[in-house]
């Protein structure tokens, strides 16, 4: 997994609450058996005005000029900011793969859906929560400042605004360490295989019906 340490990135605003994973990557694109290539279909139904299908040449599709991702001032954005409950709905990790493939590395919102939040960390993406007022303020500042960037420092757990002010965010230690070092969680877990085997042996005694005889 890619490590995440710091980022100085352009911010794209998605001014909606309850942005669900069906909106982030619609179902027809989940038929892929790969992890990559979802970026052109990120927010497909909001971004394009035609019906999206897998394996289209998206550069030739009619776009919705009102949608932020289609506006040149947000081209190359690496930070996405949205309202409450971002990533709700389905557990599809394709939503995170699509954001990552598009180039997004940080998602900021007043709250996240649990599964989406968790999936981000498995792919080198940093999601973090700022208060409703802080998010509101950033939305307002983006409105009137073209090229609005945020500097994110994971180790310090804070984000620096163009004005130089900082806002801090919370993150649990395990996720922070994995992200900072780009750790392979499976490899990490397998270092403790003995503990799993020991638990399993006891479980087999306590609940033998859970194991094929």
């Amino acid at each position, binding site marked *: 997994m890619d490590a995440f340490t710091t980022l100085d990135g352009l911010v794209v605003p998605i001014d*909606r*609450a*309850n942005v*669900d994973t*069906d909106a982030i990557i*619609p*179902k027809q694109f*989940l*038929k*892929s*058996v*790969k*992890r990559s290539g979802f970026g052109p279909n990120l927010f497909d*139904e909001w971004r394009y005005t035609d*019906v*999206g299908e*897998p*394996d289209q040449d998206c550069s030739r599709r009619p776009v919705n000029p009102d949608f932020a991702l289609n506006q040149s001032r947000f081209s190359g954005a690496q930070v996405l900011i949205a*309202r*409450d*409950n971002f990533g*709700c*709905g*389905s*557990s*599809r*990790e*394709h939503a*995170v793969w699509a954001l990552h493939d598009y180039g997004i590395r940080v998602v900021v919102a007043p*709250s*996240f*859906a*649990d*599964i989406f939040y*968790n*999936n981000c960390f*498995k*792919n080198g993406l940093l999601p973090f929560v700022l208060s409703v007022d802080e998010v509101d303020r950033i939305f307002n500042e983006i409105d009137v400042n073209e090229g609005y960037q945020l500097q994110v420092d994971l180790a310090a757990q804070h984000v620096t605004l163009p004005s130089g002010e900082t806002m801090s965010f919370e993150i*649990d*230690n*395990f996720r*922070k360490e994995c992200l900072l070092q780009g750790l392979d*969680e*499976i490899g990490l*877990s*397998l270092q*403790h*295989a003995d*503990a*799993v085997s020991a*638990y*399993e042996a006891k*479980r087999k005694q*306590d*609940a*033998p*019906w*859970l*194991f*094929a005889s």
Partner: protein
Amino acid sequence: MSNSTLYDKLWSSHQVRITAEGASVLYIDRHLVHEVTSPQAFEGLRMANRKPWRVDSVLATPDHNVPTTDRAKGIEETVARIQVETLDNNCDEFGLTEYKMDDPRQGIVHVVGPESGATLPGMTVVCGDSHTSTHGALGALSFGIGTSEVEHVLATQCLIQKKSKNMLVQVDGQLRSGVSAKDMALAIIGEIGTAGGTGYAIEFGGEAVRALSVEGRMTLCNMTIEAGARAGMVAVDEKTVEYVRGRTYAPKPDQWEQAKVAWADLHSDDGAEFDRTVIVDGAVIEPQVTWGTSPEMVLPVGGSIPRPEDEADSVKRGNIKRALAYMGLDGGQAITDIKLDKVFIGSCTNSRIEDLRDAAAVINGRKVAETVNQALVVPGSGLVKRQAEAEGLDKVFIEAGFEWREPGCSMCLAMNADRLGDGEHCASTSNRNFEGRQGQGGRTHLVSPAMAAVAAIAGHFVDVTQYIEAQAEGAE
């Protein structure tokens, strides 16, 4: 342990170790797998030269992409067919049990799990699907995971997790006749909101929950994720134990007493403390209908759609406006005035035998309205389908003008050919009314199976409780 919640007990009994950073490593008893969220996980195993830790913990079945019409033709769409074949090949390669598309036991993974006894009380159950919360109905800790975690469970039988907070949703009183677990779920979401359960594991309790059948509890727990909570659960009681008895993967007779003793502790202790408690009066819950593009945009069937100008909060006002524009509805419109183009009875929320019985029971020889273009009944599994046919429910539906289909996720998320056209309104027993969920431009209204059936006949929403009362008076 006199003040533990059910969630606390399930959590602590599965904790293998705690990492140096304070995260819990949980042992996973059952891993359910389907074709959409697993291919990249198997590919990851292969690339790292790893093997599944415990093959007998896995049960797989294809459900999202499968056609619900004639299975003999296979899957016509190439990418969908490749995805299902990939699941077949992965299960064959790694020696995992799979109910393949032509297996009579195939079905929606969250219907197949409890039905086969593959999900049991006291288990940890995961699946790369957010509606895994369903299995909590059996007194299990079950939650949806992403594909990276699917790979992690395959490789290590464990997950690294942070414990959620405890929430109790207590539904007191008795539900009225015609009001179902689905209405209860939607009413709760209407009350606490789609993010109300974020960061919590929810235990459902109270008289009205205890009175639900185990299948009703599955419907309730299924919708927990729509309230933002990854896991929902109900304490084990005699109904749970009887539900499980005799199923394929249930404890064998010589293990049965030991299992019953273990399961008897699967409830919150009297002194258990919850971080949040929500109390709902079940007796006043009416049949629910969603009008917008989030499950929290829900009203009793007798209600009228909110007017954006009545909402003081500007973000909420914007949400209402956007939802009404998408749904093609006006503020102030009565729910019963919404005309329907399609009706869908199915999904992991409402496709079990009791759901089909509920829907069939209110048809009563009547026909689907001519203004309804299509009315689908999609059983949750091959075994549900067979049981319904043994009871003659298929004939009730077909004679009324419904299409009787093969099992799968179908129009709940429209990955196969079953979908809404642009602008079509659908009464759907599924779980999500997001924009485009059932097809681009499609307009979903979430309801119970009985509400969907009476709506199909009327061509618009009607209050099923009034219909049931009228029927009862007619019979006297």
